[in-house]
C-alpha cells in the first residue's frame, strides 16, 4: 500500500527503544492459559493456549473482534475469573484472586455513586487500612494529575463521561498497582473526548511507573497508544500475532497519517478481518429497484 514500507520496518530509534523495553524485567507472564465455558450447547473455548510476556512500563494493547475472549482475558488477569488451566504471574507471583497489585478500569466507570470523587479515589488506600490524613493528601495529588482537582467534592453523577473515567483512572492509580488493566475504558465516550483521553492516558503513563494492559477493538486507538499489540483470533480465542508498533514516541494524533501508522493499520486490518474480505457484500449490486421517485441522481 505505502510504497515499500512494511509494519515491520522500524526506524533505528524505535528499534533501540524496543531493545531497551525487552531488557526490562518481566512484569506479567501468561503461560498456556485456557478458559473453557460450559454452556448448553457444549463447551465453548474462550481462550486457547495464550502465552504472553509484558515487560515493566510497557503499554500493551489487546485487539480483537467482539467475542474473541479479550474481556475474559483481562478478567482473568484481574482475578475476577479463574482460568480453566494455565498460569498468570504478576511480578513472579501467581494470580489467585483480585488484588491491589492489579488496578482495573472498566468501560462502565464503576465509580461508587455514594462517594464524592475524592472519597472514590481514597477508597483503595482506605481498604488497605491507611490513615485518612495521608490518603486525602494523596487523593488530591492523583486528582490533580487527572485534572479533576476542582471536582473533588462532586458526586459521580455530576460529572461527564470523560471526567468519570479520569476519576476511575485516578482511583485505580491511587492504590499504586504494578499494572493497570483497562477494559475498553473509552468505548462509551464520543470520538473527540476519546482522543483527548488517549492523549491524556499517555501523559499519565509517562509520569507514573505503571504498566498498562489495554483492551480495545479500535485499531487507531491500539496503534496510537501501545508499544505492542496482541491480536486475538475469535472462537476459539487464541493469539494471532503480537505486533510491535513502529510509530515513534512521543506520539500525538497528527501521527495518525504517518507512514508507519498507516502500514501498521493496513496490516492489522488484514489480520483482523480476514473472512470479511471474502464475504464482503457488494452494495452496488443490491437486487433492488428504486424505492421512491428520485429526482436528481446524487452521483
Amino acid at each position, binding site marked *: 500500500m505505502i510504497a515499500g514500507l512494511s509494519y515491520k520496518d522500524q526506524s533505528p530509534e524505535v528499534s533501540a527503544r524496543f531493545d531497551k523495553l525487552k531488557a526490562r524485567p518481566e512484569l506479567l507472564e501468561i503461560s498456556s492459559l485456557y478458559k473453557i465455558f460450559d454452556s448448553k450447547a457444549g463447551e465453548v473455548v474462550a481462550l486457547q493456549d495464550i502465552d504472553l510476556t509484558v515487560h515493566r512500563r510497557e503499554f500493551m494493547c489487546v485487539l480483537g473482534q467482539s467475542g474473541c475472549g479479550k474481556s475474559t482475558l483481562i478478567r482473568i488477569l*484481574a*482475578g*475476577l475469573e479463574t482460568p480453566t488451566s494455565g498460569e498468570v504471574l504478576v511480578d513472579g507471583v501467581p494470580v489467585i*484472586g*483480585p*488484588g*491491589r497489585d*492489579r*488496578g*482495573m478500569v*472498566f468501560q*462502565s466507570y*464503576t465509580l*461508587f*455513586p*455514594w*462517594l464524592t470523587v475524592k472519597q472514590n479515589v481514597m*477508597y*483503595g488506600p482506605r*481498604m*488497605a487500612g491507611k490513615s485518612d490524613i495521608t490518603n486525602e493528601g494523596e487523593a488530591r495529588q492523583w486528582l490533580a494529575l487527572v*485534572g*479533576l482537582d*476542582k*471536582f473533588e467534592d*462532586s*458526586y*459521580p*453523577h*455530576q*460529572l*461527564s463521561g*470523560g*471526567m468519570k473515567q479520569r476519576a476511575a483512572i485516578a*482511583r*485505580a492509580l491511587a*492504590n499504586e498497582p504494578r499494572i493497570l*488493566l483497562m477494559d475498553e475504558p473509552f468505548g462509551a465516550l464520543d470520538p473527540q*473526548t476519546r482522543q*483527548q483521553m488517549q*492523549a*491524556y492516558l499517555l501523559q499519565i503513563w509517562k509520569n507514573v511507573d505503571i504498566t498498562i494492559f489495554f483492551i480495545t477493538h479500535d485499531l487507531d486507538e491500539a496503534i496510537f497508544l501501545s508499544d505492542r499489540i496482541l491480536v486475538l483470533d475469535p472462537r476459539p480465542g487464541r493469539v494471532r500475532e503480537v505486533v510491535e508498533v513502529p510509530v515513534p514516541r512521543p506520539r500525538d494524533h497528527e501521527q495518525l497519517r504517518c507512514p508507519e501508522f498507516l502500514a501498521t493499520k493496513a496490516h492489522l486490518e488484514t489480520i483482523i478481518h480476514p473472512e470479511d474480505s471474502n464475504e464482503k457484500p457488494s452494495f452496488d449490486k443490491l437486487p433492488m429497484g428504486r424505492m421512491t421517485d428520485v429526482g436528481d441522481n446524487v452521483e
Partner: protein
Amino acid sequence: MKSKTRSRWWAVRKDLEHSRASLLMALSFILPLAIWCIAAYGPWWDVAYQVTIPAESSRLQSVYSAGDRLPPETWSKVNTALLDDNAEILAARESGTPATGSTRQNKKVLRKLHPLAFTNGWLARDQEIDDTAIRGTWIKLADGKLDDSKEPVTAENMRIVKANVEMLAKAEDGWPKESLLNLMPQSIKEYARPVYLVPPDVVAKSFWKGITASNPDAGESGSERKTLLQRYGESWRTIVLGFLLAIVVAIPLGVLAGTYDLVSKLAEPFVNFFSYMPAPAFGVVLMAMFGLDLGPKIMLVFLGTLPSAILTISKTTRGLDGSLLEAAQTLGANQKQLITTVVIPGILPNLYKDLRLLFGTAWTWLVIAELLGFKSGLSEIIDTHGRRFQFDIVYPAILMIGLSGFFMDQILAYLARYFFPWTDQPKKGFIGRFFSGISGLSGMPRLIKPSRPAPADALTKSIAS
C-alpha cells in the same frame, strides 16, 4: 430558550408543563370530592322530616311520634292541623268561653316536650310520663334557664311554652281547667340517602369534632370511650412497633440473602411459601400466644410485613450493580469490606424506597390486627360504629388512615433528597412542591446545594493544561 408554543395535552410519554401538571394534580383530588358532593347533595334524594316534637290532633288520622320520618306533604298537613287546633283554642279563649281541657289531656300536651328534652339532656329517658318533672322542665324552659343548643326550640314554640306556663302558674299546684296550647311539631329536615352515603359536610364536622374533642364522650353503654385522637395514637403505636420489629429482622436477613447465595437458598423458598399464607389467618394463634392486648396486634403487623420485606430487600440487594463489587475487589476490598463499604451504602436509596412501600402496606395489616382481642385504634372505631351503621363516625377514621399513609409517604419521599444527595432525584411530588414552596417563601437556606452538572468545557481546559 423558551418556546411560546404550548405543548399538547395528549402526548405519549411527554411531561406536561408545570402549570398544567399542578392543575391536574389538584383536579385529581377535586374530581372525586366533586363526585361525592354531587352524589350526596344531588336533587335525587327524597326529602323527609324526622319528627323531634310529636304531633297529635283530632284532625289527623294518626299520631306522629318522635323519630318518625314524614314526607313533605304529610308534614305540612300535620302543621296545618295543629295550627288550626291552636287557633281554635285561642279563639275560644278570646270569646270568653275557653275550651275545657281535662287534666289528662293537658298532661299529654306537656309530655310532647319529652323527646326534645331528652335530646337536650334536660330529662332522662325514663321520665317520659313523670308529669311533675316534665312540668318543671316547662317552667324552667319558659324562664330561659335551659340550654337548647343540641336541639333548639323554635321561637313559635317558645311563645307557646310561655303562654302555657302562664296558665300553669295561674293553676298554682293543680292543673288548669282550660285547654293548653299544643306544641307545634318540630322536625329535622333530612334526605333519604342510603345510610352509607354520608355527605361531606357531615363527615367534615364529625372529623373536626373527633380531632378537637378533648374529653372522651360518655358512652351510651357506660364504658369509657376514647376520642378519635387517642385511637389514632394507639394505631400509630401498633403499626410503628410492628413495622420496626419486622424491619429489624428483615433488613439483615434480606441483605444477607441478597449477598450470599447460601442464605438466599436456605431462607427464601420458605419465606416465599410463607408469604402466601395470609397473616390474618394466624390471628387466633397470635392471640393464644400473646394474649388479647397489644401483643397479637403488633405481631400481626410484624408477620404481615416480614415475608414481603425479606423478599423485597433481598431482591434490592441483588439488584446492586455487580461491577461495583468487582471494582471494589480490584481495589483490594475483602469480603467483609465488600458488605460494609459497597453493598450497604449501595442499596440504601433503594432500601429506603422499599421501606416506604412496605410501610404503606403495613397499614393494611394494621386494620385487621387491631380487631384481634380487645379492639383498639381506628379499627375499633370503624368496627364498632360500622356495626351500628354510624358511617359519619366511620369515615373520618378511614380518612385518617388514608391521610396518614399518604402524607407519611410523601414526606419520606421528599426527605430522600437530603438523605441521598448522590442519587438522581425524581421530579418533586405533591409534598415536595409544597415544602419547596414554603422554604422558598421564608427564604430558608437549602440544606444541600442543588447539584449542577459539570461544565463541558472543564474537560477540554484540563486536558489542554
